[in-house]
């Protein structure tokens, strides 16, 4: 039997289109000014427990919307941070929403969630939904939303935990300040006025 050697070249020109995104500074907290923020596109998807998660139902909370996948190494670093952030800030009106872009669906995602002990809500992203968020070409991609459901920051690629925490704290405090101002300037309820008049 003869053995021949044939040359065939296949060039993988991969990743070239996302280079510009990688170059964006992602290492510093950088919230958009409030008046420049756009509303995050709403979606309704079934979560890991079979309940519908509608993004707009989370209005009033600061939301970290994280696009990720089980095959994404950098995503796996961020997930333990998100688990701790969910635990730390949940009572202050914060929620993490994971959007898995795994093509294998829950079959891949649920075991991963169990392995990592994910404590926040998870949905499976769809192509249509990803298009609403600019296509989500690379993972991880995270959107930090303010309490009005508006996009305060976008991070493409892994970001430091410090950056996320600074942004979340700033957005949570922004609400606290506004709430305090509202109480100070609010008119007294009628019943209380009557009681004081006596």
């Amino acid at each position, binding site marked *: *039997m*003869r*053995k*021949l*050697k*044939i*040359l*065939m*070249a*296949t*060039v*993988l*020109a*991969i*990743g*070239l289109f*996302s*280079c510009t*995104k*990688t170059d964006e500074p*992602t290492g510093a907290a950088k919230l958009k000014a409030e008046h420049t923020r756009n509303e995050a596109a709403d979606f309704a998807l079934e979560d890991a427990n079979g309940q519908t998660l509608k993004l707009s139902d989370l209005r009033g909370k600061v939301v970290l919307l994280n696009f990720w*996948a*089980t*095959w*994404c*190494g*950098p*995503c*796996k*670093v961020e997930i333990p941070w998100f688990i701790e952030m969910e635990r730390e800030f949940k009572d202050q009106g914060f929620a993490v929403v994971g959007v898995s*872009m795994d*093509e294998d669906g829950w079959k*891949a995602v649920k075991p*991963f969630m169990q392995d990592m002990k994910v404590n926040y809500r998870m949905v499976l992203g769809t192509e249509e939904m990803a298009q609403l968020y600019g296509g989500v*070409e*690379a*993972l*991880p*991609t995270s959107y930090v939303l303010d309490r009005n459901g508006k996009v305060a920051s976008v991070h*493409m*690629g*892994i970001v430091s935990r410090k950056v996320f925490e600074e942004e979340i704290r700033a957005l949570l405090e922004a609400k606290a300040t506004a709430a305090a101002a509202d109480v100070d300037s609010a008119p007294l309820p009628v019943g209380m006025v009557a009681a004081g008049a006596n």
Partner: protein
Amino acid sequence: MAARRGDSVTVPVTVTVANGYHVTSATPGDRYLKPLRLSWEKGSISPEAPRYPKAVLRSYPFSEGKLSVLEGTFVIEQDFRIPTTAGQGFGAITGKLHYQACTEKECLPPASLPVRLSYDIR
């Protein structure tokens, strides 16, 4: 390529990964990672199991341990058997190179590239 019936032919498939990127190797050692895989459609010539290059174990800022990856230019060796019953003349076999690429900061979705080998059986 030109080959005779009964031949066994080795075809090196040369792959170049864009600078700054790596692809998960054929043996990633993590059930969640997507291995590099070369697959072929059925044709008149029979592909054997591809021989993938030795992977590099590399540390990345995002990985706890070392990851088994390939980067730069590498070669996958693919053997084909030309059956003695194969018809003579020109033909082609098509396949796909399945890969998943990342940088140090982000990953691209699993993707595939078409591979086509034209042959002449004499």
